[in-house]
């Protein structure tokens, strides 16, 4: 089976094509960027699929990152992934950005906790953590860096992602042993593909993982006598 993986949830646009059983993607491209994901994505996917050979008809599965990350970025990837899957009549699976960030480290022997963290600004991080056996210790959540560290236990810690320095600083303050293994702002798309190949479409739906409610304030529906005074 051949999988097309897509990620636009963080400051990069990436896609790759990976065949089941192969060690590495047959075609891969990553463009780091803060803005402009929507314009970049489809031409990039077009190049990657062309480089892989076999065209879209050869795609047997689509994997897309579902977040956490930029809300708009999550939706761009999902909209593209869903549409491609629909067009080629292939199943689609969702992969968490945190799982993909942690993936290169989770199975490396380490007697401690592996945590992937994305800087969510305002001192917050999106974080998830895995124990030595690769089991999830902390499901993905959005919390303050201090609270995140408390939830990670007593170390030692191996930290990955744009939120790693924040957690490392908290660890230092708490006197815990911690190492920043990677500050990668976005996952290696090859791992998104690998996780996508082993994921079960029934349990890994391509649905957004925002981890944060939308910013929206109810409008004050005022009584008749007190009609709104805005111009």
């Amino acid at each position, binding site marked *: 089976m051949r999988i097309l993986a897509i990620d636009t949830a963080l400051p990069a646009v990436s896609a790759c094509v990976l065949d089941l059983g192969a060690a590495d993607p047959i075609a891969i491209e990553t463009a780091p960027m803060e803005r402009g994901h*929507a*314009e970049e*994505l*489809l*031409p990039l*996917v*077009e190049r990657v699929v062309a480089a892989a050979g076999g065209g*879209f008809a050869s*795609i047997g599965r689509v994997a897309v990152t579902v977040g956490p990350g930029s*809300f*708009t970025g999550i*939706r*761009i990837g*999902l*909209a*593209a*992934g*869903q*549409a*491609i899957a*629909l*067009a*080629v009549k292939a199943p689609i699976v969702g992969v968490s950005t945190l799982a993909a960030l942690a993936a290169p480290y989770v199975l490396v022997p380490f007697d401690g906790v592996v945590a992937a963290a994305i800087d969510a600004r305002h001192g917050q991080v999106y974080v998830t953590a895995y124990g030595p056996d690769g089991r999830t210790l902390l499901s993905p959540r959005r919390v303050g860096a201090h609270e995140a560290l408390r939830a990670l236990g007593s170390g030692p810690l191996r930290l990955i992602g744009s939120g790693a320095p924040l957690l490392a600083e908290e660890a230092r303050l708490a006197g815990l042993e911690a190492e920043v293994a990677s500050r990668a702002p976005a996952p290696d798309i090859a791992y998104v593909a690998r996780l996508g190949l082993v994921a079960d479409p029934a349990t890994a739906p391509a*649905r*957004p993982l*925002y981890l944060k409610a*939308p*910013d*929206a*304030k*109810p*409008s004050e*529906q005022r*009584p*008749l*006598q007190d*009609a*709104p*005074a805005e*111009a």
Partner: protein
Amino acid sequence: MRVLGIETTCDETAVAVVASRIGGDGGDILSNEVMSQIAQHAAYGGVVPEIAARAHIDVLERLIVRALDAAGTDIAGVDAIAASAGPGLIGGILVGLTAAKALALAADKPFIAVNHLEAHALTGRLTERLDFPYLALLVSGGHTQLVAVLGVGDYKRLGSTVDDAAGEAFDKVAKMLGLPYPGGPHIERLAEEGDPARFDFPRPMFGREGADFSLSGLKTAVRQEIARIGTPTERDVADLAASFQAAIVDVLVDRVRSGLRIFTQSGGQPNGLVIGGGVGANGAIRRALTRLCAETGLRFVSPPPGLCSDNGAVVAWAGLERFARGMTDDLTFAARPRWPLDANAGSLHHGKA
């Protein structure tokens, strides 16, 4: 030819498949799936952009499948994919635009970016045989303008609102009257029972040169009247609704009349008047425009209310019109949250066309 159209610029997620008829005789709507988010925004008294964007991605894929199924086809059976690329809310636009581009890429079909206002302006040609040029009155929650439709991609804005959009005025007045969002349909219903002559609300811009609109003064007058009354009775509310609607109707008719004058003065003879946008569902407005057209000998083309409010069929149709003329777009096409129909709109803004 068949085109799949996707609309996600505001608070409706919509997908449709439309086929062209031979000989330029309009189109056949093979499917038209619309999912409104009104309930999700109602508590906020208006559209919340992030809620809208989330709702679009939650349902779009399903709607595409449904629209294809209902049309009895699949993606291989359509000739091109079109999407509204603006104007509207960027978060929502990106969902529909990206999905459309991805469908086009993976299914190897041409992609067509459609201006949402253009889609409403061209609707008259979907439902009937109507030749260019003609006049279009676009009235929705976000837009109020008069456009000379000279050809596909060739639009001249004759006038537009300098403050509130017509739908916005309906919605704001409805809110003052304690009616739910969106308020247009509620005002229309209440107005039927009210006395349109009880309150003499202003008709801003009435008789003024040019074809611009202004509606905020009218809204303010309604607010002052409510304040004066204090606690309006049911009767008062119905009369306020009726009097407000009567004022809007008068303003729209006057502005269309003025727009027609500008149209003919600039050397053209419109083949009809088309109404588009959610406010176009309003019966009183339709009746008044029907009367105006009867008086002036102009053909009035009023698409059914379902094609006036946001939907995918008009986007698919605009896509067909463009596709038939070889106008396609590439995958780098960027969303345009602000996208005037008229390339020279800036200089025309005050109706000096």
